[in-house]
Structures are given as C-alpha cells and as structure tokens.
C-alpha cells in the first residue's frame, strides 16, 4: 500500500482566556491511500482538533504532517461536520454544486455529476428543496454528497452522524459505506460509535482523554464489501469488545 499521509508527533496547545489547553499530544500515524481510518475516544478529547489541523483550519503548535503526493501539490480535502452545515440560501442541488463551482468545473459537466450524486444519496425528489425543508438525515446526506462530489484525496468526517437518532444513524452508516465502496478515497472519521467505526474502517485508533494521544491502534480484518449483516459477525463482536475495554 502506498503511503498517503504521514503525521509526525503532532501536538496542539490552545492559548485561551483560562490559560493553556493541551488538546493533542504527540500523535503519530501513517494513512495509506484509500484507507478508511476511524478515531474513537471520550468526548472532549482532541479528536476534532486533529481533523481541523489536517484540514488546514488551524496550525499545529508541535510536530508536523505531510501528504505523500508531490511536495507542491495541495491535496483536495473534504470536510463533513456533525451538523450538515448547508448554505440555507442554496437549494439541495446548489449546495452539492458548491465544490465544483469553487473548482471552476464547467457548468454542464458539474450538473451532470451533481445529478448523479443526488441519485446516489437518494434525494432526486429534493433537488430543488431548501435545506430548511429537509430532515436531519436528509441534510446530512446532502453534506456527504457535497463532500464526495469534490472527488477529494482525503475525506475528513467529524462525527458525521452524531446529531442523528440511532436508527437513522445506522442507516446512514450503511449508506456511507456503499458510497465509499463505489468511490474509494482516504478517510479519517471521528466517531463515538464503536460499531460504526468497525463497520466502515480498515483501522481504528483510540484516543486517550485530553491531551489526546493514541492508546490503541487496531486493524479491522473483516472482508469487504461489508454490509449491515457484518455487524453480527462473531469476529466483529470480538473487535467491539476489545475496543469497548480500551476506551476509558
């Protein structure tokens, strides 16, 4: 497997009004091309900070990370947040088109790709709807479509289904799996759900409470393509047990 991203002793300390806050400490790992990596950990640990660093939204205070592609080529990164984060003044279709507009893709081609993407997430009937008309699950599907249409080199998912109810959440996990299996890209997903992490990932990392560092790193050797039923595999259950024990 080719190496895509190398994270080297990454650390982040925030200087807030109440003094220093160390969010991330000495995090090192390597992400392969097309690898799906999940990060589990107690809430309030520096998981989101890791994603914000990789997305270039903040600068690290220690260590560094480097993408394996050519040194002066910036990789394309898509970010999905816990909230769908759609632009309320744009329709579903226009929201999905946004990354292509930014990339300067020609209009006809962009529309073609957006329509295919809308079909993939099953929102054909809502292409012209406003975000305010969507349920939480539908809005998050639009956000995922928007992330994938950019054809990112790296997809960063920050608790993408955290605001959804349990049933919708499971369905969305399976749907994300389906989309990802058709459009392989490197993914780092922060989540609280052990089964979500196991169903989707090639590898799972567990973070300690703040300042976050890696306490467990586990390869998930379940055959692909995986389905909903994979959740009931005995091997899956064993993995889940091990992860549960490692999270404090």
């Amino acid at each position: 497997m080719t190496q895509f991203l190398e994270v080297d002793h990454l650390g982040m300390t925030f200087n807030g009004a109440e003094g220093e806050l160390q969010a991330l400490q000495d995090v090192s790992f390597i992400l392969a091309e097309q690898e799906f990596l999940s990060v589990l950990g107690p809430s309030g640990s520096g998981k989101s900070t890791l994603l914000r660093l990789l997305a270039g939204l903040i600068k690290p205070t220690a260590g560094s990370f480097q993408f394996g592609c050519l040194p002066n080529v910036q990789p394309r990164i898509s970010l999905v947040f816990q909230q769908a984060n759609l632009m309320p003044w744009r329709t579903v279709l226009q929201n999905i088109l946004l990354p292509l507009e930014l990339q300067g893709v020609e209009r006809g081609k962009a529309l073609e790709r957006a329509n295919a993407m809308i079909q993939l997430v099953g929102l054909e009937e809502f292409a012209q709807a406003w975000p305010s008309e969507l349920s939480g699950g539908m809005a998050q599907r639009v956000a995922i479509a928007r992330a994938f249409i950019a054809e990112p080199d790296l997809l960063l998912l920050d608790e993408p289904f955290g605001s959804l109810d349990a049933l919708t959440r499971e369905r969305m996990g399976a749907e994300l799996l389906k989309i990802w299996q058709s459009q392989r890209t490197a993914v780092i997903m922060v989540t609280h759900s052990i089964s979500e992490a196991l169903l989707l990932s090639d590898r799972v990392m567990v973070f300690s409470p703040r300042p976050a560092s890696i306490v467990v790193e586990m390869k998930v050797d379940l055959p692909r393509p995986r389905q909903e039923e994979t959740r009931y595999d005995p091997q899956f259950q064993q993995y889940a047990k091990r992860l549960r024990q490692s999270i404090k």
Partner: protein
Amino acid sequence: MIKQPVSESKSSGKRHKTLEKLARYNGWLVIVSILLVLAVWALGVLWGKPPAFLLPSPQAVWDKFTSTLADGSLLRHASVTFYEVLAGLFFGSLLATCLGYFLAKSSALEKLLSPYLVASQAIPLVAIAPLLIIWFGPGISSKILICALIVFFPVLVNTIIGFRGVPDNLRDLMVSMRATRWQKLHLLEIPAALPILFGGLRIGATLSVIGAVVGEFVGSDKGLGFLINVGRGQFDTALVFVAIFTLIFMALSLYGLAMLAEKRSTRWKSAHH
C-alpha cells in the same frame, strides 16, 4: 461596540409596524380605512368650516393635485427630490457597505473609528444642514450629501452586523475547500449578510426622503421641500398637502421596494411546509 442591527428608529417604528400589520389583511381593508379617514376629513371641513389656509377640504387638495400635475410643476419638483433621495441613498449606502465590510473584518479598525462614528450620530443633521448648504451651495449636490449622511449610519451598522453574523462553520467549510477571497465574498459572505443589508437599505430609504426635505427646507429653489415652503408662504395649504402626500408616496414606494428585495433574498426562510 455595535451589536444590534438597526431595525426601525423609535419615532417611525410604530408607523412601520402598523403598515406591516395592515399589509397582512386583504387589500380592501386598507381601502376602507383610507376612505374612512377621507370621509371624516371631508365632513369635518363641511361642518366645522375652517378657513382654507388652516385645513383645506379633500376636494381642494385633489383639485390642487390635478392642476399641479397638469402644468407639470408637481412632477418637476417631485423628480428633483426623487433624484436627490436616490443618489443620496446610493452613495450613502455604497460607502457605508464598503466601510462596514472592513470594520466587520477588523475589530481593531472598528475600535479606532467607532467613537467618531457614534459621536457623529449625536449631531442632529438638521443643525448642520445650513452649514452644508453654505459649503456646497444651494444646488442638488448639497441635498445628495445630506441624504447620504443620514443614510450612512444605519446602513453601516447593519453591514457590520450582517458580515459578523456569517456562521463560522460555513467559513471553515469554505477554507477547507480552498475558496479564494473573492469566492468567499460572493458565495458566502454576501448571500449570508444580504437579508440584513437589505434591512439597512429599507431604513435608509425612508431616512433619505427626510434628508432631502430637510436640505430643501434650508435652502433650495426646487423640490418638494421647496414646494412646501412656497405653499406655506402663500397660505396655499392645499399645495402643502399635495407635497406631503407625494413625499409619503415616495417614501412608501422605496420602503416597499427594499422590503420586496429583502423578502426575495430570504425566500428560503419562508419555505417551511
């Protein structure tokens, strides 16, 4: 320093509220209300018989309206005022929007300038209008300046609030997608701030009419404010009424237009089923 968008000035707030409430009823209710007032007015004049220079009858005002319309004087004066109002509104809000954008971006700049901006609001424009006429002459340009000055502050405040209110999450999204500065401006910041910007423009529109009349009162030889002065001087109260009604019509039209733009820019807000 500046935290609340300017929605309505205190004195005109009630008037606008009532208007909005009325607009929600069927149109005929408004017509009934207007007819009722006209009837009371006509009957009052009929029974009370006040001298015409105190209170002319609706009929006399209407006659004055048609005659000034026929000889072209009403349109001539109204178009001068309208031009001043529009030009003042345009330049005042253009300048305020540009400055407001940079003030919203830099709180250091805002801290530096806001004492002056707030202090400038303590000076009644009516008091310095004569000075502006002395400096810039009795022509149209001094009126445009007065309109621009009166429009400036509310539009500025709304611009700052509007651009500050752009959600951080969406900013992060744009940054993570490597949007350029220009893309951030026209795909995120402007559409996000637009409803509040139009809100500022709506208030600015009615203020601009006030500015034009104030300027014309102080010194001019044309415009509706001048017409009111002439009517007062000649005890032609009907003419004063005609000028006032024309001003009301002008202010309401501009207000309605800005409100329409505001509504259109927030179509998505009213989309709930």
